[in-house]
């Protein structure tokens, strides 16, 4: 279904029938915004006070002044800066890697014909149904054979595999790039690589960017596999560092919340910078069946 001329100037008839937004809608959306943001806000509040205050009832919902002290404690307890850097490195590598690999493979599946194309694609799609957690035991054994236990590449390399990414890129390339275009390029003597790099990739860059962004966010928040395979604190990613803060027998909630907030902050910043693009990307990349 293609959008019709909804971008045309609204006619008087349209205006008459575009109903006003009822109040309850705004109320519902307001609740939604509150619910979405409150836990984050609470995290911030506790990270600026301390455990004892966090447990006060009625709750103190205004921030206190303890942020720097607790943040400092976080950095003392775990190598948090290193953890953030590790997360950045891992997430970037995965985001970029996924975008490139899936663009390549997606292009091949969408536009090139070769023996076994459909079979291989079905296999890829099927693996989307398989949970990642299933294979963690063998994957750990593989990593130990490779000598990759407790290294960042143990987290990055498996993370580059995204069946969903192939599906997504293939979808986009299919719908964005005409066969006519391909054919004309071939007639002009272009090699496959030139077609991909000069024509196809630039056209689907927004979709690839969104895929990379999703890959980045997912990698940033990934917990299970890094938790299993990373053991030294200077290899921790941000998520594992938070868990480490939670570990001590003397659970300091303020400490844990402070670490949590610090680990979420980079993503929030990123979100403010490119969030609109992310949202638009999701919108533009509408699924067409």
């Amino acid at each position, binding site marked *: 279904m293609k959008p019709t001329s909804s971008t045309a100037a609204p006619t008087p008839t349209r205006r008459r029938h575009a109903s006003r937004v009822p109040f309850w809608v705004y109320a519902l959306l307001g609740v939604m915004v509150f619910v979405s943001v409150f836990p984050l806000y609470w995290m911030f509040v506790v990270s600026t006070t301390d455990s004892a205050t966090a447990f006060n009832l009625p709750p103190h919902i205004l921030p206190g002044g303890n942020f720097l002290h607790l943040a400092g404690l976080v950095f003392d307890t775990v190598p948090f800066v290193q953890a953030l850097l590790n997360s950045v490195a891992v997430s970037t590598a995965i985001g970029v890697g996924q975008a490139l690999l899936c663009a390549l493979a997606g292009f091949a599946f969408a536009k090139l014909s070769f023996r076994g194309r459909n079979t291989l694609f079905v296999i890829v799609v099927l693996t989307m149904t398989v949970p990642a957690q299933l294979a963690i035991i063998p994957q750990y054994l593989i990593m130990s054979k490779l000598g990759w236990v407790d290294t960042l590449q143990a987290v990055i390399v498996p993370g580059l595999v995204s069946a969903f990414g192939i599906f997504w890129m293939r979808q986009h390339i299919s719908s964005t790039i005409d066969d006519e275009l391909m054919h004309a390029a071939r007639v002009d003597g272009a090699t496959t690589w030139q077609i991909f790099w000069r024509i196809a990739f630039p056209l689907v860059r927004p979709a690839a960017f969104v895929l990379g962004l999703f890959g980045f966010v997912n990698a940033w928040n990934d917990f299970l596999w890094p938790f299993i395979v990373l053991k030294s604190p200077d290899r921790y990613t941000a998520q594992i560092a938070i868990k480490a803060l939670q570990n001590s027998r003397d659970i300091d909630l303020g400490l844990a919340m402070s670490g949590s907030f610090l680990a979420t902050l980079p993503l929030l910043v990123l979100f403010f910078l490119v969030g609109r693009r992310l949202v638009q990307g999701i919108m533009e990349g509408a699924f067409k*069946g």
Partner: protein
Amino acid sequence: MLSPGTIEKTAAQPARQRRIHLGVRERLAPYAYIAPFFLLFFIFGLFPLLFTFYVALFDWDPIGEHHFVGLANFSELVHDPRFWGAMRNTFSIWALSTIPQLLLALVLAHVLNHVRLRAATLFRMSVLVPYVTSVAATTIVFAQLFDRDYGMLNWFLGLLGFQHIDFTASVWGSHIMIATMIAWRWTGYNTLLYLASLQAVPRELYEAAAVDGANGWKQFRHITIPSLRPIIVFTVVTSTIGGLQVFTEPLLANPVGGLTCGAARQCQTLTLFLYEQGFGRFHFGYGAAVGVALFVIVVIVAAINYVLVTRIRSERP
């Protein structure tokens, strides 16, 4: 490569039937394109999966020995009440989190699609905030909010005159707590997916319906939902797959409970049970058996869901 003769010949044919003769290098090119992905895929995607099936046939201690036991792990699993408990927990949490979440996402998408909505972008962005929040962080916050004596939720209940609920102690309570965490995180993401698809629905359909006297609810039922069928299928299947594998929330919601998520395994999901057996007790073989069972379950349930949801009939007003 291309000879002038070939081009003339091909130019004469109708567009769709034209074929360019490709050299060997070009014919092999596609394989080069999919090679990086598939190389990694076979090593880190397919092979571990197959290896899981293999390990499940062993009694495998990582720092001791391993010996072949055939299907013994599976028969033990079938008789293990902890396995069935974890299964119950997994399905319960999945249902509690997925169904309300997707319904809410549908409603929100319908509402956000309104042509004259003010601050639409703000709403759309704020709905995605939970998605970018770190899972570990969220779990700690929610666990504190749900605390029996000092959590805000129970404080609020107390104000209303109800008794405090010990969420982590009861089966239902812990499931609700975890389902809330999951729904909180994913509702916005699914909302945007639905919204994106809705944007492709012609306005005229809604206007025609409005002219015919259909109210918001009728429009929702007869236009929105059928138009969204493909994306609903997609989200149901992916939510199923994701929901049946829940791990981080049960692990972190109950730090004291270790790997059992509660003194009586109230909220231990199958994946957490897998982890407990594999990396807590180091019974790799048994853990792998849980993994195989989980795989079978996910495939079956996803297939069922797929079949059910594709039966949403398209109704035209």
